[in-house]
């Protein structure tokens, strides 16, 4: 990466005896959209609040454009933020809300009016200028909150779970809108979410967090297909975990159920006789023996869930249950519970969890 725009260096945050963020490091390039993804309590919001200036790190530093902002107050950082609870000022109209930061900065009224109109155009709500927040829907309020955050042209945009209070349909349309506005303005953005689909769909990179640490930082493709840890593999996407035993470490042979699978180059120092956790995404597995798949296992259909375009099938294999997805085809009836069935996959799709 060239010179990072935002650099979070060895940041730690403790509240009394409890450490909620531990040695957190991240460099963000100019214009990049990075998501912090993790379960509740993993420290993602605390890191965001430290970048905003609402919390002071117990150790480490935060640098923006080469300037150390660790001890600056929130109102001195030139950072925009959108909150989960919208946080629009109830006593101000939409236009006054958007113009708040500009007025605080002492901008002339004509310039404020022009910028507010521009922002309302960007979020496609030009007719809402004179409304009060209580007259708007949740999605509209969050778009206004976004406009208010970007109106003063901040260096950095922070989004603290901005979609979690909205219903499913609005979430999808608004996340696409946020991404499109972010790309258009080229503003460096940090997005906090616990929703993996949100993070995977709109991020340039994702930092998966757990226990106050970044477990893995990578592109959505890397995070999904090459999870670095067992936590990342389990947290991002659906995963089948199978137990395997290394039979020949030198050639990468691992026994799964009664079958032998070749995992050459993936064993990462495991010795013959070691037990391994092996993972497979449902979409990597096919029902029946398919050409190109070098491994197959036999079992019995345990559950069938019809999800519309996709049918999720759970197959019992030895002591394990494996989920797989097949596309719905009106010409082919779905599998029946209790039927004998083979599954197949490519051993190259199998992940060894560490």
């Amino acid at each position: 990466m060239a010179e990072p725009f935002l650099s979070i260096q060895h940041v730690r945050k403790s509240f009394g005896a409890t450490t909620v963020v531990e040695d957190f490091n991240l460099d963000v390039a100019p214009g990049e959209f990075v998501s912090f993804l993790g379960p509740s309590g993993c420290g993602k919001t605390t890191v965001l609040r430290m970048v905003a200036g609402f919390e002071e790190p117990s150790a480490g530093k935060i640098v923006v454009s080469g300037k150390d902002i660790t001890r600056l107050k929130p109102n001195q950082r030139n950072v925009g933020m959108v909150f989960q609870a919208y946080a629009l000022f109830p006593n101000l109209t939409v236009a006054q809300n958007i113009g708040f930061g500009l007025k605080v900065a002492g901008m002339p009224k004509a310039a404020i009016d022009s910028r507010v109109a521009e922002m309302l155009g960007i979020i496609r709500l030009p007719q809402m200028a004179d409304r009060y927040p209580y007259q708007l829907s949740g999605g509209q309020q969050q778009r206004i909150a976004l406009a208010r955050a970007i109106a003063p042209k901040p260096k950095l945009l922070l989004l603290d779970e901005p979609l979690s209070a909205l219903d499913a349909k609005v979430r999808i349309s608004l996340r696409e809108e946020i991404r499109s506005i972010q790309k258009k303005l080229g503003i460096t953005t940090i997005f906090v979410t616990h929703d993996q689909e949100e993070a995977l769909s709109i991020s340039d990179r994702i930092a998966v967090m757990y226990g106050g640490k970044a477990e893995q930082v990578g592109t959505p493709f890397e995070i999904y297909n090459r999870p670095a840890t067992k936590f990342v593999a389990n947290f991002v996407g659906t995963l089948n975990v199978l137990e395997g035993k290394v039979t020949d470490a030198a050639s990468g042979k691992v026994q799964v159920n009664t079958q032998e699978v070749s995992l050459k180059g993936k064993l990462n120092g495991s010795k013959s006789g070691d037990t391994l956790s092996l993972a497979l995404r449902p979409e990597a597995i096919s029902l029946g023996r398919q050409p190109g798949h070098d491994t197959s296992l036999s079992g019995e259909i345990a559950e069938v869930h019809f999800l519309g375009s996709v049918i999720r099938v759970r197959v019992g294999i030895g002591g394990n249950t494996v989920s797989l997805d097949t596309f719905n085809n009106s010409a082919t009836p779905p599998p029946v519970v209790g039927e004998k069935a083979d599954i197949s996959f490519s051993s190259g799709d199998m992940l060894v969890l560490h």
Partner: protein
Amino acid sequence: MKSGRFWAWVVFVLGAAYFFIPLIATIEFSLRMRRGVYSLDAYKVVLGDSQFQATFMFSVIVAVFTILLGVLIVVPTAYWIRLRMPQIRPIVEFITLLPLVIPAIVIVFGYIRMYGSNSPLPFLATNTGANALLVIGYATLALPYMYRAVDTGLRTIDVRTLTEAAQILGAGWGTIISRVILPNVLIAVLSGAFLTFAIVIGEFTMASLLNRPAFGPYLQNLVANRAYEPAALSIIAFVITWGCMSLIQILSRFAPKSANRPN
């Protein structure tokens, strides 16, 4: 069911009678100054009395200063406690309740001993000082009402998130309190202000013992020496108080709707 409704009406009628009969009797008595006919003579006498005007104006001015002092003390305190120190809220609530259990006469004797002309802070040595002490005393008496009103108002808004939203947009503490917090709790502040006004207008003990020309001592003096005028004054005071309460109701309709919580 029907029996329950009957007894509910009985209780309602008894309660209304307890409230309205003395009121109607006072109004009726205040109109009987002229022998044999109803007239507004008692009201004309009271309203035409220069002492009435002077004492009433004095109390109104003291009430305005008391409200300003109360707002200056209570709003930042209640705001800061909600924002940064919620753990000390029970202690502050207890302190604000003390004026309800400590009689005004105890407070004012304390003032006289503490701020007499020989003390390091001789408030009572001058009229201005004594007036300032009266305002401070009234602000103390009104503290339970003002604090509760403001705290209730702050409870209806998400103080922390609104503060952070304003901070991140560049606002300092002055801007946050004056342009974000105060406008959103204005109705609550006004409720506290009107209650303060009602307390100050009729207060006797402090004004009398600090020897201030306030409306309370004037009222007491009139009651001791006249027959019909005190009744007229009571009705005037009653109308003022009810006018204040009605204003709270009217103003609450213009309160900003809370929209800072997710639907």
